[in-house]
């Protein structure tokens, strides 16, 4: 599980940094924590938008990619430090990486109260609509009199404190799992049973008698059906092309294309790039596999939900943006229903595209400018885009 730990202090020497480093070191077996500093983030200013600065984009990317976030906050004047406040303002202004993200709060301070008041403020701030993080309730980890808490190797001296902290971390792991289910489209309801993701059935076009999971499924299936290839001509609606021409044609599409049939079997993708160069990775050996073998189990419910929307005719296309490719790309996964002339569901055409070049071209051609997320007057929250975030295919 990938966790980002944010040091809520910009001081050169910070006990909260030591605390996060201790968590990273001591609980390595449980979670993988990357500790991030906020020293380089400029002071927030509504009139001087620096959302695209390196320091903010770096934090943004790390948070988006993480399964959860631990924030370690000092207490300054009974509240959180301005440096942390400023970071949260940037992360709720034009971008919202903490939206729906599981967050755990810890804190160290000089007072015996150990940041109890700043933690309460932080909870209220994280709950504001522009931030909208999902903060783990209870489990306050307050480290008071912090100047006496660590030994010379920067380990917590008190074993009971360490044990309590371990309990909090374990609860946080469970909390992240629960949040992922709540944030999935159908909420707590697990809809994975509504779809046969293991493709155990057959449809008219299923090529039977071949192991779907075999690495050379394509070769075996082609042999069994006597499939044409190369320069053989195929009659299409409307036209005649050779198989090679069809391949070149599909590979020239400005998208990664995938065909999965109504039996939830992955039959085709326009193989032109290797796995690690693709926006949504696929590899040649996967073709023929049931969809269950192409997704991690935790995504089953979301995958099933998407297919249900298409199969039942509720939607013709379900779209989701995948923000993990950095600020210069806007990658969209489109799940488009394939239907016959009578509207019967035949399968999914998943096409994955970076639409940023198209947007840029449109703006250039029309001379229009993006105004960038207006502030919603009633709530102070900038508008957000809804996503079916966990429905993305992780190869």
């Amino acid at each position, binding site marked *: 599980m990938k966790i980002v730990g944010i040091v809520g*202090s*910009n*001081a*050169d020497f910070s006990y909260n940094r030591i605390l996060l480093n201790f968590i990273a070191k001591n609980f390595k077996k449980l979670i993988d924590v990357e500790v991030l500093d906020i020293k380089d983030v*400029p*002071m*927030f*200013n*509504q*009139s001087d938008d620096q959302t695209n600065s390196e320091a903010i984009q770096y934090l943004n990317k790390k948070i988006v990619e993480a399964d959860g976030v631990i924030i370690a906050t000092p207490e*300054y*004047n*009974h*509240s959180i*430090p*301005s*440096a942390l*406040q*400023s970071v*949260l*303002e940037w992360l*709720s202004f034009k971008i919202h990486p903490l939206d729906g993200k599981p967050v755990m709060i810890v804190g160290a*301070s*000089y*007072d015996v109260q150990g940041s109890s*008041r700043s933690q309460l*403020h932080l909870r*209220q*701030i994280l*709950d*504001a609509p*522009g*931030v909208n993080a999902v903060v783990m309730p209870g489990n306050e980890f307050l480290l008071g009199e912090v*100047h006496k808490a660590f030994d010379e190797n920067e380990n917590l001296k008190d074993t009971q404190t360490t044990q309590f902290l371990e309990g909090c971390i374990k609860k946080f792991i469970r909390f992240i799992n629960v949040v992922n289910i709540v944030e999935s489209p159908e909420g707590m309801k697990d809809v994975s049973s509504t779809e046969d993701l293991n493709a155990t059935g057959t449809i008219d076009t299923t090529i039977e008698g071949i192991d779907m999971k075999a690495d050379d499924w394509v070769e075996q299936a082609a042999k069994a059906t006597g499939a044409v290839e190369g320069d053989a001509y195929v009659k299409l609606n409307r036209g005649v092309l050779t198989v090679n021409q069809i391949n070149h044609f599909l590979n020239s599409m400005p998208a990664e294309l995938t065909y999965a049939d109504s039996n939830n079997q992955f039959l085709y993708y326009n193989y032109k790039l290797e796995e690690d160069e693709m926006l949504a990775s696929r590899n040649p050996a996967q073709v023929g596999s049931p969809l269950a073998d192409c997704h991690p189990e935790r995504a089953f419910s979301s995958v099933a939900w998407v297919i249900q929307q298409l199969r039942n005719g509720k939607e013709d296309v379900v779209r989701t943006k995948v923000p993990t490719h950095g600020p210069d790309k806007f990658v969209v996964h489109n799940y488009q229903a394939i239907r016959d002339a009578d509207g019967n569901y035949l399968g999914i055409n998943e096409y994955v595209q970076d639409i940023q070049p198209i947007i840029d071209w449109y703006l250039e051609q029309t001379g229009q400018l993006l105004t960038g997320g207006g*502030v919603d*007057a*009633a*709530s*102070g929250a900038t508008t957000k885009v809804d996503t079916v975030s966990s429905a993305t295919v992780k190869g």
Partner: protein
Amino acid sequence: MKNFIGIIGTNSDNSTNRLLLQFIQKHFADKANIEICEIKNLPAFNKPEDKKAPYEVQKLADKIRKADGVIISSPEYNHSVPAILKSTLEWLSYTNQALIDKPVMLTGASYGRLGSSRAQTHLRQILDAPELKARIMPSSEFLIGYSLQAFDDNGNLTDQYKIEELEQIFNDFIKFVDITNQLVNTNDSHKKKATNFSWEEN
């Protein structure tokens, strides 16, 4: 006539809290001299080892010391006060502690309906911390909701009812300043204790 400092709690170029303080300055010109102070050019607080206030912070602190009272007008960011205002208060608490025992009145404007009520609650708690220890006037919320629509072209509040509410609070504040200064002067030992307070040597 009282001398007050008005602090605009934001670094935004177009601030309705700035409008509000300017209105207060104009509207009560016969009752008090109010000097409006910007914090937008103060450096971000970063806990310097020498505990020295940068020049701009010291200048603000000197003005606060000389003033009879301070009016802070704060926007609401994420149910709290903007980082730049927090940073200013961190400087004051960490260096010269100019706000100790200073009578303070709070106002706030925000775009939403609630008019920064949550920001004011946070601000009260912050100003009450031992290194700040300002004397905040109790029971005196003054909030402008939907602040973008609250002023006319001349920067005057349009709602007569709101103006009356403000007048009442301002009159209270003038009395509060006198009462507080009496209290503080008879309680000098308390002041010494507060001035010497430091989290790291407590």
